[in-house]
């Protein structure tokens, strides 16, 4: 069995950008899906990122919009990544 590595870029918006202190994070995801990338991101960033992305049970939160190369991700568990992909994580903004 062969494994592939996809180097992708996560672009962070809103409060997630503030929490992580970066607007972009580069990740290497082995043979990955979008969910793998989210897990890798959380593993790397720890508690600064986890509550934005996953709930207490480890389910993906529905308050995050995922865009893969600008297109909405219907199912993070099945959407596959390729090298050079851009994954955007959008969160709602409360301020007015």
């Amino acid at each position, binding site marked *: 069995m062969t494994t592939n590595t996809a180097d992708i870029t996560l672009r962070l*918006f*809103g*409060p997630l*950008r*503030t*929490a992580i202190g970066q607007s972009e994070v580069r990740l290497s995801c082995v043979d990955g899906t979008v969910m793998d990338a989210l897990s890798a991101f959380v593993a790397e960033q720890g508690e600064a990122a986890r*509550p*934005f992305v996953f*709930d207490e049970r480890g389910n993906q*939160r*529905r*308050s995050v*919009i995922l*865009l893969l190369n*600008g297109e*909405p991700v219907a199912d993070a568990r099945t959407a596959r990544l390729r090298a050079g992909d851009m994954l955007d994580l*959008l*969160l*709602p*903004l*409360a*301020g*007015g």
Partner: protein
Amino acid sequence: MTAFSEDQIERYSRHIVLPEVGGRGQRKLLSASVLVVGAGGLGSPVALYLAAAGVGTIGLVDSDTVELSNLQRQVLHTTTDVGAPKCHSAAASIEAINPDVRVIPHTVRLTSANALDIIPAYDVVVDGSDNFPTRYLVNDACVMSGRPLSHAGILRFEGQVTTIVPGRGPCYRCLYPDPPAPGMVPSCQEAGILGATAGVIGSIQAVEVLKLLLGIGASLTGRLLLFDSLGMTFREVQIARNRDCAVCGDRPTITELVDYEEFCGLAGALRSGKELTP
């Protein structure tokens, strides 16, 4: 049909000369009513531009008083207004710009108990609130009463804006079915806001409302516009109506207004005395 006065012809001449507006469009604006929820960073530019444009009736919902820290972005209010109810200072600013406009102040907090008494009385609603419970409440009440809604949010150097037309596109819950975990999205008080960013996004909301009232152009229905003032970029994200949406889906499960603090997980925070809004 009421004829324009000479003053009105001069005041609105730059609108009337536009073929897309004309005298007929200006009359539409003068007979229209818009509810602005929140007389703050977003509500200020929205209300000022709608007033200047001659929107005949502007309702304002805000229960806060003006604070000195508001004045960096909330351009409806002035230094002498500090301590005054925002609805009162906003009404004075609007009436000073355009005496054609009737202002209806709602010096209350919008709640599940009063939203459906207030919102259906207006043609279009603008969400310039500053917390998630109110944002979901306004969305649901607009969907239930069939009122178009201009939604926007801002934080630090960023803004998001979209237009929700019930029955013709996605609603706020289609976009964000659930709120973020409590405390994860800071307020402008906590994280800051570049004041002029509110001006950009609020001005876009005003444009959207005027287009809806006039029936011209392409609205942001089904599109979320993202603004990054640091990079000075605009991006557009296509958003689709969610057929499983709890409020506007094919089989809605939310058919009456709910407890929005509880929905947003803030009931405990409120009970403990934590402030809900900045």
